[in-house]
């Protein structure tokens, strides 16, 4: 085709969009950059929200944190919808194979009853915790400012739904697809005394109005304690007693958390470094929620791991402290 031959030599007039070039220079930009930066409308708003007339539809005042440029809160994974979805499809494919293997070999159903009871008591109720996390990330994605942070928060919200459904599948692996495990786990979540403190904190997060505080509470503090406690400490505790059958299906959760923590840490670190005011705010939130979740998890750790519970939780808390210190917060 003559056209194609001719066009090989044609130099483009510009390499990217104007707003991208102003940020990163007049050069070819990545799909993450073109698909993310300056995507949220900034000005010339038309109507006052019927649901919050005191503020604008998008409004920086929905958090006390202040940023000169909210797009500084970028995602180090550079997830836009396409790269995110393709990555998750691939991971899900691998996970499906693990789950399939676990089902065929009855890895969970062949565990002793006590081990199964631990799974149903300690892990399956966390599907409700994940649903709560979904709601909270969705909140940040709704009321946050700028496509960089809200995009990552929303893709994360979908991850939380996926995690909730994965935990549900673990329950179904145990109960042979009857769904009894899910009913039991919900009852545990709603009524078991050792689970009530954490449910209380999750419900408190639902009425937290500052979306950045909520991100700190959920993704940095709560997840920073819950994930290593259950998917490392409990997982290891179970492996010592009953072998690694459970680990084959639980491994996914901690991998997910390790990946997501890269985003969380980048966001928090950047916001903390922006100003002493931001640092003080985030420090206050981190401290307050950390105390609350530690207290809430304490009876649960003990209920699951008995005498080992307190040490496990302490180890998790120490690790969180080290992580906070790296982000510019108090350990």
């Amino acid at each position, binding site marked *: 085709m003559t056209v194609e031959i001719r066009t090989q030599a044609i130099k483009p007039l510009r390499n990217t969009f104007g707003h991208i070039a102003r940020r990163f220079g007049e050069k070819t930009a990545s799909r993450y950059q073109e698909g993310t930066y300056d995507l949220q409308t900034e000005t010339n708003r038309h109507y006052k929200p019927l649901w*919050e007339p005191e503020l604008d539809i998008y409004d920086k005042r929905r958090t006390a944190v202040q940023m000169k440029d909210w797009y500084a809160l970028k995602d180090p994974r550079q997830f836009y919808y396409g790269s995110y979805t393709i990555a998750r499809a691939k991971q899900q494919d691998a996970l499906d194979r693990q789950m399939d293997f676990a089902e065929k070999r009855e890895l969970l159903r062949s565990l002793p009853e006590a081990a199964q009871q631990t799974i149903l008591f300690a892990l399956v109720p966390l599907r409700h915790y994940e649903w709560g996390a979904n709601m909270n990330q969705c909140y940040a994605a709704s009321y946050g400012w700028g496509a960089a942070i809200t995009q990552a928060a929303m893709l994360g919200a979908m991850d939380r739904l996926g995690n909730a459904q994965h935990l549900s599948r673990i329950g179904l692996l145990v109960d042979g697809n009857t769904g009894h495990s899910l009913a039991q786990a919900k009852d545990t979540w709603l009524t078991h005394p050792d689970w009530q403190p954490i449910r209380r904190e999750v419900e408190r997060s639902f009425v937290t109005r500052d979306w950045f505080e909520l991100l700190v509470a959920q993704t940095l503090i709560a997840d920073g304690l819950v994930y290593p406690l259950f998917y490392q400490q409990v997982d290891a505790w179970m492996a010592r007693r009953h072998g690694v059958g459970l680990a084959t299906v639980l491994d996914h959760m901690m991998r997910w958390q390790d990946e997501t923590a890269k985003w969380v840490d980048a966001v928090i670190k950047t916001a903390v470094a922006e100003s002493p005011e931001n640092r003080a705010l985030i420090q206050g939130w981190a401290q307050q929620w950390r105390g609350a979740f530690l207290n809430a998890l304490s009876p649960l750790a003990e209920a699951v791991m008995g005498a080992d519970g307190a040490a496990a939780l302490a180890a998790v808390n120490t690790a969180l402290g080290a992580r906070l210190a790296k982000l510019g917060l108090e350990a």
Partner: protein
Amino acid sequence: MSVTAIRPGYHGDMKDTVDKFHANQILGISWDKHLMYATPMCIPVPPQMPFGALVEQVLPTLFGQHPQFAQIDWSKAEWLRSDEPFTPAFDKSLADNGIGHKAYIRFRTPGLEGLSGASI
């Protein structure tokens, strides 16, 4: 009917009140059956401008390119204000002619109904 909002007292800002137009008011204006001008126009005008000045000085800048414009006999033109017929006093101001901020006037020119029988 009125709006249903989360709390009583919901009200948007009045974005286009006259105080925001630097001593001008704005006026919507349309020449019926002359769809070469596919939309009515909106212009800022001082409220004290005599109606005659609007016709003689402003309208030529809006519609002067139309070949029928020069043929208009203004004494026969018919005027509508808020889509109701009215008779303007050319020597009086827009304000005194009841043409306030964000008024909308139309004029018709009997015998001059656009070009090609197609209201161009």
